[in-house]
């Protein structure tokens, strides 16, 4: 291991995910690689020397000196509107990482995996899905993705494409598409009972999202009999945007 250092990162491209979220691709010379689920710290410095930093989850698998982040623009935020609306290819930030060895999935792990995402909590879980696919892992995955409505889905096309061994269920909390059998609403026991694994399979559970969502989902998993040591959580706090 090594201590963390800040590295220059140049934006090489970006793609919109939703009306308010954007995936940013950076080239980071010297990047040491990373595991699915890890995050990075991003530092921005203004011309007058003022600087501030934020944490973001990595959205993709290790890819040489490239890293991808998906950033949701927070209204009146200080950093996220810059990253999603102002920054252009060729502009630079500093990135340090990867950090976090706890909320990670490794491709050599063959246990069943249950991913539970609330809103932008999908990002580190998507890194796990992509890492699984890239590695040709046969670990069976299920994703339960709670979001406001179909228009808020990140990676929508990719998640709807068939991916053998991955089952995806979308839960909408406010707006449901026409003909949907499940009414709009917050995550419930039945959602995790149907979209997840029986506790007897002993899946590794990864839950990521806003604090309230993570609390609710983790409580439901415990109620379904999942062992607390198999439930790993990552809460998004007040980021200050």
């Amino acid at each position, binding site marked *: 291991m090594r201590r963390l250092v800040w590295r220059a990162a140049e934006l090489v491209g970006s793609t919109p995910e939703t009306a308010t979220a954007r995936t940013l691709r950076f080239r980071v010379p010297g990047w040491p690689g990373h595991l699915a689920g890890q995050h990075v710290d991003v530092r921005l*410095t203004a011309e007058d*020397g*003022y600087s501030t930093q934020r944490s973001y989850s990595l959205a993709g698998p290790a890819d040489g000196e490239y890293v991808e982040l998906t950033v949701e623009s927070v209204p009146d935020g200080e950093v996220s509107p810059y990253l999603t609306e102002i920054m252009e290819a060729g502009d630079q*930030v500093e990135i340090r990482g990867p950090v976090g060895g706890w909320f990670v999935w490794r491709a050599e792990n063959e246990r069943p995996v249950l991913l539970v995402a609330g809103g932008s909590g999908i990002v580190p879980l998507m890194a796990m899905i992509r890492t699984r696919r890239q590695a040709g892992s046969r670990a069976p995955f299920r994703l339960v993705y709670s979001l406001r409505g179909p228009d808020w889905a990140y990676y929508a096309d990719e998640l709807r494409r068939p991916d053998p061994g991955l089952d995806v269920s979308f839960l909408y909390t406010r707006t449901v598409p026409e003909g949907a059998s499940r009414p709009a609403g917050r995550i419930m026991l039945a959602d995790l009972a149907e979209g997840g694994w029986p506790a007897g399979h002993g899946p590794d559970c990864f839950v990521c999202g806003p604090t309230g969502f993570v609390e609710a989902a983790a409580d439901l998993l415990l109620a379904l009999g999942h062992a607390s040591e198999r439930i790993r959580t990552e809460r998004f706090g007040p980021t200050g945007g």
Partner: protein
Amino acid sequence: MGGFVSIISRGFHGRRRDEGDRLPPGQYLVEDFPVLSAGPTPRVPPERWEFAIDTEAGVTHRWTWPEFLALPQETPTVDIHCVTEWSKLDTSWEGVSLDTLLENVDTAADYALVHSYGGYTTNLPLEDLLDGKAWIVHRFGGEELQPQHGGPARLLVPHLYFWKSAKWVRGIRLLDDDRPGFWETAGYHNYGDPWREQRYEGD
């Protein structure tokens, strides 16, 4: 940082860094009221609330919620400055001056250790609580003080960084010797004067 030339993010300006004689060095202005916490928010029902002052001689003075509300109330309007660099101007509060609470307390102590429901502590010289400089407040902006801002009652010492204005205040121990509190033992300045920018130990 560290004297190296930083990477500049073209077009990034960051939040507004205000200047003006009401803002201490390094502070910026906010209109909202940020919430910072070092632990879970305690919920203290008024019937269980009490405030106590313990003297260096071991004498305790206590006030229940109705007794506290029956004391003469003041309505200070003050500027507050958080060590995390935000300042908020003209905040209006209602509560009891520490001069009132300490009026009948017999003490020769030099220091105060403020302690809170939830376990938080902060220290300051006793003289910084006197002469109209500090209050125990229970209303903010004309309304009951909300739990996330320290309700039912918090200390208000606006001439020091705001971490000294302990939320969920439960009591004050008067001491002959200074005893650093929660943040003061973890790198923050022992006194915390915003105008001298005493943020960290050694500043």
